[in-house]
């Protein structure tokens, strides 16, 4: 599993087992094609970043790949087979807008464990670990729904990680986190990768994409405009869409111009 770490640095797509793949994936709603003929492969152990403008279909694509919504056309393969309930149990997702059960913070974590049949002492240990990971020990008895936006996002992350998934979908997991928490979450993601978890990450933060990602899919109007290694695309985008998006680079956070108006 430590091989995964090597990939972070050399960013080359390695020839390895395909964990999840999609062919000709489409999704229509209200007579509109929102996801349009997407083909992709997610290799075991890698971190695939999905970027694109608001409304380009990133969240929809994640929901399709996670099997939450049914594609209008196309197929999804999980380890070469179909995406069934058993497959779903090996995946987890942090939603863009976390959904908190009307229970305490701890009970939200406990629920994820119960579903996977983890009981007794092990449940207690893992619950405590997850609380510590997300720095939510002090809040563990609070109703989850009164947590602040960032705290909820951290809880959602902990709830997804607690089931040690093979594949983790992350939809802007650090959008409302303060810098220190963002750092902590990025560290958590790295740790998960070291433990063998494959990551699919949606983010608007080019810095984060560079720090965490191997491959990048650039979505535009529901289509993949460009796909390839993260650094290559961010530095030399070939598609018009990606070029235009990065043309707004004055607002890509690592540009010093962003500080003067």
């Amino acid at each position, binding site marked *: 599993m430590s091989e995964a770490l090597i990939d972070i640095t050399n960013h080359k797509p390695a020839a390895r087992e395909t964990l999840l793949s999609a062919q000709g994936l489409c999704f229509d709603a209200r007579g509109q094609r929102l996801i349009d003929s997407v083909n992709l492969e997610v290799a075991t152990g890698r971190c695939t970043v999905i970027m694109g403008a608001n409304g380009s279909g990133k969240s929809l694509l994640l929901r399709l790949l996670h*099997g*939450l919504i049914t594609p209008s056309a196309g197929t999804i393969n999980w380890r070469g087979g179909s995406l069934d309930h058993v497959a779903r149990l090996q995946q987890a997702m942090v*939603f863009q807008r976390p*959904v908190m*059960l009307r229970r*305490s913070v701890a009970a939200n974590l406990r629920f*994820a464990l119960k*579903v996977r049949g983890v009981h007794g002492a092990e449940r207690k240990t893992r619950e405590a670990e997850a609380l510590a990971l997300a720095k939510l020990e002090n809040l563990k008895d609070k*109703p989850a729904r009164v947590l602040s936006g960032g705290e909820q996002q951290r809880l959602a992350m902990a709830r997804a990680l607690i*089931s040690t998934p093979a594949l983790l979908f992350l939809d802007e997991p650090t959008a409302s986190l303060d810098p220190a928490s963002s750092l902590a979450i990025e560290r958590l993601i790295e740790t998960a990768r070291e433990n063998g978890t494959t990551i699919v990450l949606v983010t608007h933060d080019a810095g984060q994409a560079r720090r965490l990602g191997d491959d990048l899919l650039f979505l535009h109007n529901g289509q993949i405009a460009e796909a390839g290694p993260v650094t290559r695309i961010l530095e030399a985008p070939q598609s018009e869409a990606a070029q235009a998006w990065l043309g707004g680079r004055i607002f890509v956070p690592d540009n010093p111009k962003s500080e003067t108006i």
Partner: protein
Amino acid sequence: MDSFSGILMEAIELILSWDSDVIEIIMLSLRVTLCAVLLACVIGLPLGAIVGAFRFPMRTGVVVVMNTLMGLPPVVVGLLVYLMLSASGPMGVLGLLYTPTAMIIAQTILVTPIVAALTRQVIEDLNLEYSEQFASLGVRPIERIFALLWDARYSLLTVALAGFGRAVAEVGAVIIVGGNINHVTRVMTTTIALETSKGNLQLALALGLILLLIAVVVNILLMAIRGTAARAAYV
């Protein structure tokens, strides 16, 4: 005929003069009603939750049937249960006709659709929020039903109270299958109907007031439980 307020006054006086017969009737009313509501919840809550949480063929049809059955006429339910339990009916050998058990059966049939249909709505609304998260967590159908019911429990309390209201006030079905037999199957509502037919309107109204008082007490108890629990855990 006395004046309107005069009759109310007399009703209140009648309440104050407690009576062992009245207590017997109240206890039977409570027993029958609470058993029926409990049974209706045991059946109706999961049923409503299943229909509220899952998509399946003919689902709209099931919803329509559930909503329609909220309008089951008590007399019809009474007759059907009577025909089932009658000595010449298929379950006659059980000898349940004219017993409190028969009344519980009839009321359960009446109240279950109400509990189920209203639960369906509550759970459907909650499921709209939860469903993708549950699917993502890999929650199995049964766990999902329980989790939805649990998280909606405070809203479902009102549903159960609606069922209780229907059961406690019901007379048409219980009088047919219970027979309103003194000391055996006489409950508050059948007594009220009897006294009304005797022209003892004051007494009937007094009993009606007592019935409402009982309902108030049950409601306050449940709200108190809810209140305490809500303060501790709910948002």
